């Protein structure tokens, strides 16, 4: 019953004929400088309202998390001198020197790590939000991405707890706010992709921390990058969401992280909730049957 099938091509699965290659993001947090250009570019392009003016004290992150009015979110994690020293973590991202080139020292010198990473909707292969959406507002595009159709969503909010990453949310704001009351998240710039353009966030990223392209190609590139980092002694470098066999069938937007996912506010082992849906329906059927049977039994001796 569930759409939870291991698929290599979600667009074709969704019925697109001659779909273009699946598009996605490889966000390489080891070269993110935390400039937040991605956050701002996304807001500019998509006309997203301001999302609160509160100082959060979470290092330089005053956005907090992804949400209906924040479709890119840059996390800042300060790992203090003592903790880094005690944990034996690599204190900062160092990049592989070219073969034969010597470094006089390595990253252990700075004594503190400041991790930055730009988060976004994962455009899951098996997208819980899309699966559970009762209106069909959430849809799979020809690029294999997951998009809310603003004019269909009725704001039921079901996609929100369904998303294992806490990405999507219902927009709040005073009446008159654009798309208020309905679910909003990254569209992977569907409107730009159609015109052959790069998504606004990737376009704005100065360091190419956000790389946009064909997912297959990005996965290969990411693997090379993580290998290079490992070779350079950055043992903590890991890909997140790149594995098509993970609980969401692989993410369309995946990441290179330098610490465990939860450090960045990401679930360590996300699973699309609908993977368990067939079993849940079976349970419900038995429960319903039990109720019916119970009711019947209740009337066995009853007569007026």
């Amino acid at each position, binding site marked *: 019953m569930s759409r939870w099938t291991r698929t290599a091509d979600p667009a074709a699965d969704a019925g697109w004929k001659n779909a273009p290659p699946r598009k996605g993001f490889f966000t390489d947090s080891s*070269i993110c*400088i*935390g*400039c*937040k*250009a991605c*956050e*701002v570019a996304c*807001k*500019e392009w998509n006309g997203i*309202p*301001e*999302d*609160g*003016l*509160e*100082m959060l*004290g979470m*290092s*330089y992150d*005053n*956005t907090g998390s992804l949400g209906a009015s924040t479709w890119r979110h840059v996390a800042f994690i*300060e790992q*203090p*001198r003592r903790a880094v020293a005690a944990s034996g973590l690599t204190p*900062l*991202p*160092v*990049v*592989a*020197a*070219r073969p034969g*080139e010597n*470094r*006089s*020292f*390595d*990253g252990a*010198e*700075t*004594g*503190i*790590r*400041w*991790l*930055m990473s730009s988060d976004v909707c994962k455009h899951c292969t098996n997208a819980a939000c899309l699966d559970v959406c009762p209106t069909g507002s959430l849809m799979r595009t020809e690029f294999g991405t997951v998009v809310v159709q603003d004019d269909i969503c009725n704001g039921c909010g079901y996609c929100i707890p369904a998303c294992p990453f806490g990405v999507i949310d219902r927009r709040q704001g005073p009446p008159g706010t654009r798309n208020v009351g309905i679910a909003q998240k990254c569209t992977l710039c569907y409107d730009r992709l159609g015109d052959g353009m790069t998504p606004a966030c990737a376009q704005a990223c*100065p*360091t*190419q921390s956000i790389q946009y392209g064909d997912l297959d190609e990005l996965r290969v590139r990411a693997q090379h990058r993580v290998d290079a980092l490992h070779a350079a002694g950055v043992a903590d470098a890991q890909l997140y969401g790149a594995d098509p066999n993970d609980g969401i069938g692989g993410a369309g937007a995946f990441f290179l992280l330098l610490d465990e996912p939860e450090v960045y506010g990401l679930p360590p082992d996300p699973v699309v909730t609908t993977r368990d849906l067939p079993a849940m329906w079976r349970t419900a059927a038995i429960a319903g049957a039990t109720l019916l049977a119970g009711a019947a039994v209740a009337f066995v001796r009853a007569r007026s």
Partner: protein
Amino acid sequence: MAECHPVGFQWVMEAKDRGATVIHIDPRFTRTSAMADLYVPLRAGSDIAFLGGIINYILSGEKYFREYVVSYTNAATIISEDFQDADQLDGFFSGFDPKTGTYDTTSWAYEGMETAAAAGSRAVAGRQPPAQAGGGGDELGGRGAALPHSEVRRDESLEDPFCVFQILKRHYARYTPEMVERICGVPPDQFAKVCEAVTANSGRERTTSWVYSVGWTQHSVGVQYIRGAAIIQLLLGNMGRPGGGILALRGHASIQGSTDIPTLFDLLPGYLPMPKAGVHGSLDDYLTSIKSDRQKGFWTAADTYVVSLLKAWWGDAATPENDFGFGWLPRINADHSNYQTIVDMLDGKVEGYFLLGQNPAVGSANGKMQRLAMSRLQWLVVRDLNLIESATFWKDGPEIATGEMRTEDIATEVFFLPAAAHTEKDGTFTQTQRLLQWHHKAVEPSGDCRSELHFFYHLGRMLRERLETSALDRDLPLRQLVWEYPLLQGDEPDAEAVLREINGCHLSGEKAGQLLNSFVEMKADGSTAGGCWIYTGVYSDGVNQSARRKPGSEQSWVAPEWGWAWPMNRRILYNRASADPAGRPWSERKAYVWWDEAAGKWTGHDVPDFQATKAPTFRPEPGIGGPDGLAGDDPFIMQSDGKGWLYAPSGLLDGPLPVHYEPIESPLRNAMHTQQSNPTREMFPRTENLSSPSPPDLGAEVFPYVVTTYRLTEHHTAGGMSRWSPYLAELQPEFFCEVSPELAAERGLEHLGWATIVTARTAIEARVLVTDRLTPLTVGGRVIHQIGLPYHWGVGGGGAIVSGDSANDLMGVSLDPNVHIQESKAAACDIQPGRRPTGAALPRFVEAYRQRAGLSVDTGTTRITPPGDGT
């Protein structure tokens, strides 16, 4: 750099990807540090000691690039025997005049030029009359200081005790790793890593570059910081070569452009100095003061630049008979730099003020002094995108709240004119690589917004119309001005026409009317015009070269077809130095420009910055000046001796070599010399601008912490563009201070709580960000805590989405004497938990601090420090 130049930082990341080692030296761990291989925290205001330590390491460890040093720098040049160094005079060079606080630089000269130096450019350029406090050097910009001639005595064995090299060695001998630790708080092992990395990465095969911005400039010795880096780069052979250089990251998008075609009071376009009243009566007086025909290099053609400029401005009215209108140029009679003008305003000497793209109520040091000064104007014109604090201080500034100013007492008439943003107009930006990049108007300005070009053109037009019938001589300059520009939609002058005028053209002869292709075509006889000689060529072949946007992937790695770099589209200046004295590349890896023996000319990846057919072996006849006086191994073609200056015999007001001085407000005694701080600094002692005491003066302990100010990626300068933008304001909504956990514990500061920060000027409040990115330093046996303050917030203004106290209200105004920049990177302060008092209680609170510290107007103004350690 990652914080303030994130787009440029992509190249650092690219370099890293290719194996470059990135070192970041900063009091705070920033986004740049996060990407660095090595992060070195140091005490704000101590970099000269750090750089001096590296110089000492290079010299004492024989790590310099000898062939480069001998051939291309003035290391071998012999200096006057009269010269006495700071190590001999305990922090002074020879020639200091305690009465004026200035140096007589005669004794600093190259041997054989002593008398001439006194009569040369320094004396002529002149300081303020001693009666006037404050300095006033020359903005040298792209120009080396003048020399009377270029016949110097050299000892290429570098053994002569009076050669620059030996002087340098003696000068820096005391800058040991231990001294670096004592002054900067950098442990010797960490310091050694920097020294090793920098030297190992320099030489024939490799180059190191230094990148700085205002962390180095905003000091009372800012210019000497950069000089320190210059000495390192020259010793290591890193100038004029790819991957080398000293990269000054710039500020506002075209801050480079606004020094090239200057908004500075003492410069004309192209780094020609502003004529001085009573000194430069005639064009000849002027020209002889800025160059000597017997010095080497291209400055000897300054007459062609000046005359072409005058022709561009006054056209047919500029004739040989009237000195091409030289007499119509304004003259400067004193220091009219930014802060001096503010002080003059306070004294009621300034009637009116134009603020175009500047927000001094928030962005300039000593905010209260800025606002008080503006309140004494008769009129103030503010052209800005938003209703910034500088336009509304008279009704909602902090002094209104404290009662120090009352709206009804302020007679200043404020005109606010909405400005068009760069996206709403055509024009160029000139960035740090001297690259002019054309930007096209994307949208029409909304409402009444107009471009600067529109404003100035029509202001000029209207003034000229009013003066049409004037018979007064003083109105001639305005009436004769060439002021014809085609008008486009909305009466907007055509910006390309302006760029063409800047480029210049032939006025007579067979090419009359044609655009100039190069500044060497400029003539001193009035047959050419050009608004800024260094920009000549930007319109070569009649094409707007600055509008070129050929992608890097479609051209060579030097990318000459992206925009246009002055001069002559050269991407690296002095690139003759990328080849050895014989004209061969120092190494294959670093080949850039070289001598093609067969073709008999210089060639390479870039436009050679050298006379194209001058062979490396060429040696001029003695006594010949100008370009022809340059030898085939004189790569520094704008320098008056063709060499890179390790030692600056002239051109600087505070010394030929950098010396470590403490910031004006420092918790520490100068460990290097008795002399505590720069004796030639520019000061404005007055009640509006008090300083706190530094050792050996008593009372310094009242302000025990170091405070530094800086930028966040999320905001821009005084906030006029970012605090009004919801997308930026929400990213950093509140003013905060950054403190280490140790300081937080010492002073009971709570994360996200409030803190009050106090200096001699005032007290402000900020939210507290306790962060491991700030670290206490052990300096001279003491633990020094540093407090970081981003300076983007201000109080007042119309429609700002976020506001907060302004860091600049804390900062005092004391300046580097050479370029009049304020010391806003290091000051002394105290910090307390909790919010500051409000209303009239605030001045009382500050007054109590002042009394405890024993402050008076004279505090911190001693030029010659008496011996003692202040205990």
